């Protein structure tokens, strides 16, 4: 399998899968711990991505160098 970078959704799905496997109680100690470790790592990565998002509102414009995101304030209701 190629080691391509997973999308946010894929990472989330993987985390979900790990949680379910760990919750099944069918894993041995070593497997549980490695599952837990992988899950924790993914969760931290996802949180980091989210922290960067900040929920800003921007406007997409294009100039000679390509696309630019500018801050955007919607006009007040008339």
């Amino acid at each position: 399998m190629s080691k391509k970078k997973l999308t946010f959704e894929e990472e989330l799905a993987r985390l979900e899968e790990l949680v379910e496997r760990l919750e099944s109680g069918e894993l041995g100690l070593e497997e549980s711990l490695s599952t837990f470790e992988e899950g924790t790592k993914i969760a931290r990565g996802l949180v980091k991505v989210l922290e960067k998002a900040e929920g800003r509102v921007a406007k997409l414009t294009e100039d000679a160098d390509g696309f630019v995101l500018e801050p955007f304030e919607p006009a007040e209701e008339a």
Partner: protein
Amino acid sequence: MSEELLQDETRQVRSVSEVTGMVKNVLESSLPSVWVEGELSNFKHHSSGHMYFTLKDDKSALPSLMFKFANQKLAFRPDNGMRVVAWGRIKVYEPQGRYQLYVERMRPSGIGALAQAFEDLKKRLADEGLFDPEHRKPLPEFPRVVAVVTSPTGAAVRDVIRVVRARAPMTEIVVIPSVVQGADAAPSIVRAIQALDAWGGADVAIVGRGGGSLEDLWAFNEEAVARAIHAARTPIISAVGHEVDVTIADFVADARAATPSNGAELAVREGADVSRRVEALDRRLSGAMRGMLAGLSDHVERLHTAYAFKLPREIIERSAQRVDEATRRASSSVAQLVAARRAEVARHETALRLSDPRGIMARGYAAVSVLPASKPLRSVDDVEAGGEVRVTVADGRLDCSVLRVSDSDGRTS
């Protein structure tokens, strides 16, 4: 002839081509392109594929033509008597000395004609398979970036921002400004959708505008817009007007929303606040790990009691403490967990080693069971003098006869 006229003639005589060229220059430079509304007459669809017709109103007539490449994109079948709005360039046809409108885009004007155009285009695109469900891309479950193709000053953009904010505050909103009304709307929306894909940063896009008349919303019924939505790689939600407004864009989009607010609701579904989701998963992960550790502690306990001798009380208590400590750490923050976890394992391994009877036997203890049943010998009551017991030591076992049985006070039974 008078002297005067003769003078004029010699002063400035131009060829027909020169004059025609001058007319051409003046006309074509002052009318680079125009929108014209009028009635179709003398309509001919030539075998070459080009269309020839006259646009007229009650006073004037404008000879017009529409080449095959342009009329192939028509959303309706033109016919005599139909009122249309046409866009094109005025050009002078020099061999005949007449000017004509070279039509590039044309749509019916008036409600009835618009409805007909809508049905015609809908049928044509449906026959072509553009509305087939297999073309529909799934919307992302947890979009981080939602694009909005709409007017930056309209009500739609405010509605979208309000709904997305309320549902998932971390979601980034990117407005891709577009004209959404009038003649420039369709090409502007097409450009915005192309920019959306070229930029590639959005997980999903809402394309739409607030309510208006059928003609206000018309751009979303244009073939170019439909094809741009169809071709887009980013999943697109069409969100045009009010509940009752249905546009061609609705049929071709990956999802149809009744209004822009509803479009935002589809883009960011209830519970789509992904940060809460990640937190919940993380809690479950820690919870399951705690469960695992608790199970491990039970296992240690069982080991302690399963053998025919008691471990020193101190070891049991220490194990219990270790499990408690592991549990406490597993419930603390994600960041601390990873580091704490390895230490937990090491400690548990030690606890398990300590409780392994072989380790203890190696230090000189032995396990004794009663023969022939092999029940663990726990008490002087479990055996009588003359009975047989099996003594298990680190490297083997001894089957023994019991000579005498006495309790801890030295009383012989």
